[in-house]
């Protein structure tokens, strides 16, 4: 069933040309320079320190590396990170999963 619904959603997405984050529950990441990072559709904070931050996503997680990182604000669906951002990396988001 799950597979059918996913396929249906993928098909409607292609047919109707809708943004993927709306239908597929994917994160939308906005990066302002290397100073500000806004992640929508996250699934919580997994690790949190000054230099490294890991956010859970619907599939896998997102690793942010930098210096002096802080969470400016956090809401159930959205998080705004400030600091000097050096590296953004996806972990465990293979096509297969």
């Amino acid at each position, binding site marked *: 069933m799950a597979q059918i619904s996913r396929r249906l959603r993928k098909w409607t997405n292609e047919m109707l040309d809708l943004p993927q984050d709306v239908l597929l529950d994917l994160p939308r990441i906005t990066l302002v320079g290397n100073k500000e990072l806004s992640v929508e559709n996250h699934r*919580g*904070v997994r690790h*949190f320190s000054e230099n490294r931050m890991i956010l859970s996503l619907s599939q896998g997680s997102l690793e942010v590396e930098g210096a002096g990182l802080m*969470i400016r*604000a956090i*809401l159930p669906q*959205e998080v705004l990170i400030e600091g000097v951002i050096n590296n953004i990396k996806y972990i465990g988001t293979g096509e297969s999963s």
Partner: protein
Amino acid sequence: MKIPTLSGLRGCVMITVRGEHVNHLINALAESGIPVWDIRPTSDHTADMKVLLRDFHALRPLLKRTGCRMHVSRRIGLPFRMVRLYNRKFFAVGMIAFFMILFLLSSLVWNINVTGNEKLATEDVLKVARQAGIKPFQWIFRLDEPDKLSRELSMKLPGTSWVGVERKGTTITIQIVEAAEPEKKPLVEPRHLVSRTDAVVSSIYAEQGRPLVEKNTRVKKGQVLISGILGDGDAHSQAVVAKGEVKGLVWHEYNLQVPLVQKRNVYTGERKNKSYLVLGNRAIQLWGYGKEPFAKSETITEHDPLTWRSIALPIGWMTEKVMEVQEAEETLQQQEAEKLGIQGAIRDILAKYGSDSQIISQKILHEKKENGKVYMKVLFEVEEKIAEELPLVHSQGE
């Protein structure tokens, strides 16, 4: 973006959280919809964050569930300030009292200026204004409207054509436009004009009254020139103020003596300055010590006190100029001496009998030179005003 609005006004606290899994707490907070911001990790197991004061008590079960501990590190916002202010009541009372006193004092009348009055005394205007309620230390809100006040003042002040009352801050300006009144003539009693001296009338002009003499009439001292009685002097007469101008020829005899050697003091130009500092009624000499080198001198003193506005202060400066004087002698010829004497006499006549007197003729009757002086007897014939006022006394009747 997601920081609650007016967090300063609503009050927020900065808390330091300690625990194995601070991120669990953050997730729990986010899920339960409690606004939390400025989360800054300080070490592996501690983090600072800000929450609203409103949500502070909702934190406790979440902390328990995630096994974290926290303590408040900073209190921010108005509610905490209010608590502090409440603890310092007298400070707050003083602040309120300050503004109240400021407000009260600025709603008092402090100054009253009166402008534009020339004949009216300022004190009189202020007195009338006081009756109308304009006085120093009066409440401004107890004053009437300016147009009412100006109407009242202009009714009460005689001799004004317009009175304006204007308030600017704590100062009230009363502007006065005085009515142009005709000049009042001095009150005079009915009178005659009589002759001041023996003379021969040279011209007579009666403005009011009845002329009794004519040109070239010889008059005695005290003779009526212009009568103040109109009519026949019996039942149908009327007393008026005699006015007019009567000129007559008068003879003045002068005994003059003029010394032939005239002594005069002349400045040589040499001088010495002395400066004093004046304190009260003492003067301390600062400059110009030493003996005076002049045989004969004249001293001019200038006192220059320090003034503030129009008040002379007891501190000042005084300078003395000691000027050397030399006596100059001048020897006159007899003719020059005569001229000098006559000029002096003419000046005396003009001063005594009016500057519009005219010297008709002058004659040296007698002249002699004796003891270095010239003695002269001079007769001047002068045309001058001879009229003098003589009041009419009613009870005597005429």
